[in-house]
């Protein structure tokens, strides 16, 4: 993306939401645990293609990449992930209820 044409820089700042901080912590801790590293994070991010930059937020791309990395390294299976996600959705309608 370096050198590509782009618009004006937006100086808006938002506070990080709890779920975003947890994603950040998940990268640090899964890296310390030897399950992934910055390069493997980036490899999946780059595989997502440009469209992901338009449609997903920063930490949405990160959790997607971390999840993909965990499956590839065998930390959990796609079945376990799917089952877990269904259970979480059934807990409630907001992040606070479900987490």
């Amino acid at each position, binding site marked *: *993306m*370096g*050198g*590509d*044409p*782009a*618009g*004006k*820089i*937006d*100086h*808006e*700042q*938002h*506070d*990080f*939401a709890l*779920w975003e*901080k*947890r*994603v*950040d*912590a*998940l990268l*640090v*801790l*899964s890296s310390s*645990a030897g*399950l992934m*590293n*910055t*390069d493997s994070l*980036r490899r999946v*991010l780059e595989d997502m293609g440009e469209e992901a*930059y338009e449609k*997903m*937020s*920063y*930490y*949405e791309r990160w*959790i*997607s990449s*971390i*999840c993909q990395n*965990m499956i590839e390294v065998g*930390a*959990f299976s796609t079945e*376990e*992930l799917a089952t*877990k*996600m269904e259970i*979480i*959705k059934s807990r*409630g*309608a*907001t*992040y606070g*209820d*479900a*987490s």
Partner: protein
Amino acid sequence: MPHDHHEPLSPSGHPYRADDDKDLSYWQVMEIAVRELLIEKGHISATQIQDQINTMDARSPANGARLVAKAWTDPAFKYALIEDAGQASRNMGFDIGPMHLIALENTEKVHNVIVCTLCSCYPRNLLGLPPDWYKSRAYRSRAVVEPRKVLSEFGLEFNQKIQIRVHDSTADMRYIVIPYQPAESEGLSEAELAKWITRDSMIGVGLPRAPA
């Protein structure tokens, strides 16, 4: 009870990101799932997550400012910082992990700016998490091709005789800018000077300024 319906602001005065008060998103479900599975499998613990968030929240540009203020007042330290910024930072008690850190000195003739065109590499151990604009497509794309125009959007105009150097960070190599010390701040103590050193001045998109 009366209830005001102003735009909600966080304790620090920033608006909450729009999706914070909406229904549980797919990606939030994924975050919870990944976290819980890693905990259940014994790879990480819930305490570690909380500790990591606390550590992250405690980091702020005040750390970098202390480093720069010391460099401004102690020539031997500045030399050590430029020689090996990682070791000099560790010697001051900052945990900067295994990353390589390079300190870039701004002078009368050279102004340094940092960017990460690949993603968002940033000296977060010394400055906290990067600002949103640092991670934006606009900054990452343009900083390397039209730095003077980008700097002008931050309110900085440099004489053409001043060389602008843009440094592209990587996962293993991070940079921090040692801003050029303003003449008006000469003679102040290290603690006083630290108040002049802003986050943006250590990224290279701002200049040190007298505390308000």
